[in-house]
């Protein structure tokens, strides 16, 4: 009988590669999208990739010491909270500039002297 657990890869590198891919997709989205909200979402994606890395590391690296595994998920929760705070601040700023410029597209924010 195939246990559900066996479907989960036992290889740390697999998780790290997934995390790296997610991070890269987030970074690419940040570089490629011109809408401030989309960029914000990309950053969230990057942070989630980091969370995945944390949890994976927690599960594999310190299997000898179970307290560390718990720590990894704590970290993930903390990072989520920080990400939420960041999103809040970000949205506030986006709204402020939207009121001034009537556009969410960041490449049109270029009033500053070069």
């Amino acid at each position: 009988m195939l246990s559900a657990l066996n479907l989960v890869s036992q290889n740390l590198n697999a998780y790290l590669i997934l995390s790296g891919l997610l991070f890269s997709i987030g970074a690419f989205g940040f570089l490629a999208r011109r809408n401030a909200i989309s960029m914000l979402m990309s950053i969230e994606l990057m942070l989630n990739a980091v969370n995945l890395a944390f949890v994976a590391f927690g599960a594999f690296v310190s299997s000898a010491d179970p307290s560390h595994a718990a720590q990894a998920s704590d970290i993930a929760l903390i990072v989520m909270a920080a990400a939420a705070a960041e999103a809040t601040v970000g949205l506030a700023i986006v709204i402020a500039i939207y009121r001034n410029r009537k556009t969410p597209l960041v490449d049109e924010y270029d009033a500053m002297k070069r």
Partner: protein
Amino acid sequence: MTFSDTSAMAPFIAAVLVSAAVILVDLVWPGRKTAALTATFVGLAIVAALTVAVGQSGTTAFGGSYRVDALTTFLDLLFVAIAALTAAFAPDYLGERGLPVAEFNAVLVFAMAGAMLIAGAADLIVLFLGLELMVLPGYLLAGYHKTDGFSTEGAIKYFLLGSFSSAIFLFGIAFMYGMTGTTRIDAVAANLTAVVAGTAPFSPGLGLGLAFLMTGVAFKIAAVPFHYWTPDAYQGSPTPVTGYLSVGPKVGAFAVIIRLFAGALLPMAAQWNIAVMVLAALTMTLGNLVALTQDNVKRTLAYSSIAHTGYMLVGFAAFAAGQIQGLEGLLYYGAAYAFMNLGAFAVIGAIQRKTGVTSNLSTFAGLVRREPALAWLMFLFLLSLTGIPPTAGFFGKFYIITAAVQAGKTDAWLYVLAVLAVLNAAAAAFYYLRIVVYMFMRDPDTETSVAAHGRLVWTGLAVTTVMTIVLGLFPGVLLDAVATAAKAIG
């Protein structure tokens, strides 16, 4: 949470409470500037007193994730001073533009609390939290003039890029955690020592982690080539905020560097110091040369702040090469730079008190005739930023460069870095001097009426002036504190 936990973290907790108190005071007496200001300054005084009291006990909190040592105390007091001076300089400028003072102060104190968390961090996650708590209010402050296009534009650039770099930084922490199995700074250092000694397995993940961490902090201190956000964010922000941004988050980010690289990653100094040196060389040189071409004073000082980051990095590189003097110099420079730069920005803010006054060079033409006191004070701050003796800036540079020269005996590249620093200090004179020339040797374009400045501004200017002179003439007053603080690490 035990009593010893609370007592060790008392200054930080107090800072958060002060921030909340300022908001409450504003709720009770809406729009009463005096009430909000009184709450801020009394609160900051309490925080400072608590810092001094706790600093003598030397304890850890929350299972060792937060630790109070001499470095924490030194940095905390510096952060309180920066916040207090910013709070003193801002009301005039904000009031004229109809911006609320209470919220400003509350946000500012939050940022200060974040910096204080960094200063005491003994765990990488606490370090990250402190960093976020410091920079998030910073984004808000940059966009504080929310009806002004420049302010919000600077803020969104600062925010987007800052968050991007925070994610990179956090990824670096994840790697360090994965490679060493812990986030406690001393445990990380112990594990890395084992790796360097060859008794523990080595992984390329360490290299990646170092790169991510270095990129993250290089962005926060605005080191070249991660500096692009600086000029826009600085020029766009309301002037008192620019002063704060150029000092508070910068010293805070250096605190991150010290806790992270001088604490957790020190065993691998031989591997990462070359990167620090390259960053230092690029940062000094590019910052200074580009500052030469600017004709907006805020932008000039933005680039000059990049150059100052470079000098501080020289001190750090000297430390990493084994000279504790380099770290002392870095801390001293941080304090000296905080006072002189805040002073310079306070003068700009005072000149821009009336809405619509730009920070272009032409605004400064003939300043000595319109506002002689401000012109002479600006002259002093610029002298200090240039590094002309006997000012604080001179001594800071002198200390750092001597440290680099001493360290040159172990790593010859530091000689090169020291010579480069001297050359840069010489070149920097030109753009500072240009401001002086405009103030003293040009006639004003238009006759603008002189604005009166509040007592708080003058008090703040008096403090920055005295510190700029005293730190230059009698550096001994700070050297002991700096030496003890540096010893806490080395």
